[in-house]
């Protein structure tokens, strides 16, 4: 299509240069630019084709008009005709130039190829890195290798968001200003990006050898433990179980991150500062996630007004840790199923 259109629009009104962008893309070969124009070979939507066709027809029309207008202007309208033709040409040239600039700027900023090397992973690698994130390594004498990839951490953050949403829904958390989804995404991404940046800043102060990408990857994989703990404890509401998992699983993933950081830092004070901060933040975050989004709804309802709150929401979600063995099976029920049982009884 480019070869037939170019000579048609080439000489008359500067439509040639607009296809120059097409050639740039060809040379770029295999680049993953988000292409909003008609330059993509694989998309063949009829709407795009119609748009192209229409544009070509319009160009040809304009060419024909321009040719006819020139003749007429020359014969009947004199100077006024020429001025009109000139202004049309200038406007057209400006439009073409502006369009070229915009598309170049867009392809520069929307070029996601910058991120491509960080997503170059195989499923086996992701699996092994997930398992390794739970195994602290003893050797701290030489810097341990951190894989600088973003696929695993990003997927883990999204998984945490999904698990958090599940937990908030089953405990009927009420968010007054905002939405459940917004809160979940904000919390998880805020933690990942914010704490990574903070620890990177501390690492810069303590002269640790770690880059921002490695810190993001390390903390991201550290969220694997959080995902496991929350997934289990949002469904089985036992405080003792949660504390056990918090120490065990949370502790393991924290120790792994701490060991990696210690291996990359010199000096006892610096090691203490860096690793103490990271350990505290990581463990406290897990604690926060469990208790903030899993709280007793009755306490909230006391402060809310309104008699039209349905009884389904008055079921306590928090089960005390000490329970006689006979009542243990009932506590293992999912909160939703329990609430439904209560509703059944009340009907």
């Amino acid at each position: 299509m480019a070869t037939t259109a170019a000579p048609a629009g080439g000489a008359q009104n500067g439509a040639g240069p607009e296809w120059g962008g097409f050639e740039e893309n060809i040379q770029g070969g295999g680049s993953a630019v988000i292409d909003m124009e008609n330059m993509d070979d694989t998309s063949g939507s009829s709407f795009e084709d119609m748009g192209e066709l229409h544009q070509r027809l319009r160009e040809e029309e304009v060419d024909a008009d321009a040719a006819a207008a020139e003749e007429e202007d020359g014969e009947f309208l004199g100077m006024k005709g020429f001025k009109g033709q000139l202004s049309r040409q200038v406007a057209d040239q400006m439009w073409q130039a502006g369009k070229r600039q915009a598309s170049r700027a867009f392809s520069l900023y929307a070029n996601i190829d910058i991120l491509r090397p960080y997503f170059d992973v195989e499923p086996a690698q992701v699996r092994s890195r997930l398992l390794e994130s739970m195994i602290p390594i003893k050797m701290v004498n030489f810097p341990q290798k951190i894989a600088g990839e973003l696929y695993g951490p990003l997927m883990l953050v999204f998984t945490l968001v999904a698990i958090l949403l599940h937990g908030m829904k089953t405990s009927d958390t009420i968010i007054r200003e905002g939405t459940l989804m917004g809160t979940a995404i904000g919390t998880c991404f805020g933690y990942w990006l914010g704490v990574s940046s903070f620890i990177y800043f501390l690492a810069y102060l303590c002269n640790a050898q770690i880059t921002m990408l490695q810190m993001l990857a390390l903390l991201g994989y550290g969220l694997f433990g959080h995902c496991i703990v929350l997934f289990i404890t949002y469904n089985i509401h036992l405080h003792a179980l949660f504390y056990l998992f918090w120490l065990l699983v949370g502790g393991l993933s924290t120790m792994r991150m701490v060991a990696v950081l210690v291996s990359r830092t010199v000096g006892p004070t610096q090691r203490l500062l860096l690793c103490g901060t990271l350990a505290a933040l990581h463990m406290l975050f897990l604690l926060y996630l469990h208790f903030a989004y899993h709280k007793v709804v009755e306490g909230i309802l006391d402060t809310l007004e309104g008699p039209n709150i349905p009884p389904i929401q008055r079921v306590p979600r928090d089960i005390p840790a000490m329970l006689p063995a006979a009542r243990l099976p009932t506590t293992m029920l999912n909160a939703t199923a329990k609430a439904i049982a209560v509703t059944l009884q009340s009907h």
Partner: protein
Amino acid sequence: MAEAEESPGDPGTASPRPLMRDLKAVGKKFMHVLYPRKSNTLLRDWDLWGPLILCVTLALMLQRDSADSEKDGGPQFAEVFVIVWFGAVTITLNSKLLGGNISFFQSLCVLGYCILPLTVAMLICRLVLLAGPGPINFMVRLFVVIVMFAWSIVASTAFLADSQPPNRRALAVYPVFLFYFVISWMILTFTPQ
């Protein structure tokens, strides 16, 4: 390709024929999603009308009846919209970064159209909820949502799998799984006041 005189950009013609053609195209794609086969229809002639219709329908059905809906955390209209479209954009970026050779809008089109089974599940859930709450009610809804969730994933995988390098298919399918899981969860936990 379509005839030149039916150009949709032409301001003069207000005839219903382009509309019927577009509706037929959308309907054909719905059929392809309901009976997923390895075909190129969704990819070749992508359009975003189907996803828009489905998204609006789903968002409208997820609204609650009571006026004070901001107190119980149910999804707002804009929230559903944002979840669907930003989720689809994220999955598309992810699959492009993993080395897939699919266009941006083709991927959006496929993911949007594969919400159709979940929209059907929402319809069924709303009808079932008219019968009143209860454990059987919940079981029926759970079963329907799980079946439609699986259907969505199978349909989108059938269309998207070929565009990924074969050893990375699992990496590209996992975010799709999360995406439809979130939507299914919103549908399952919907209770009208």
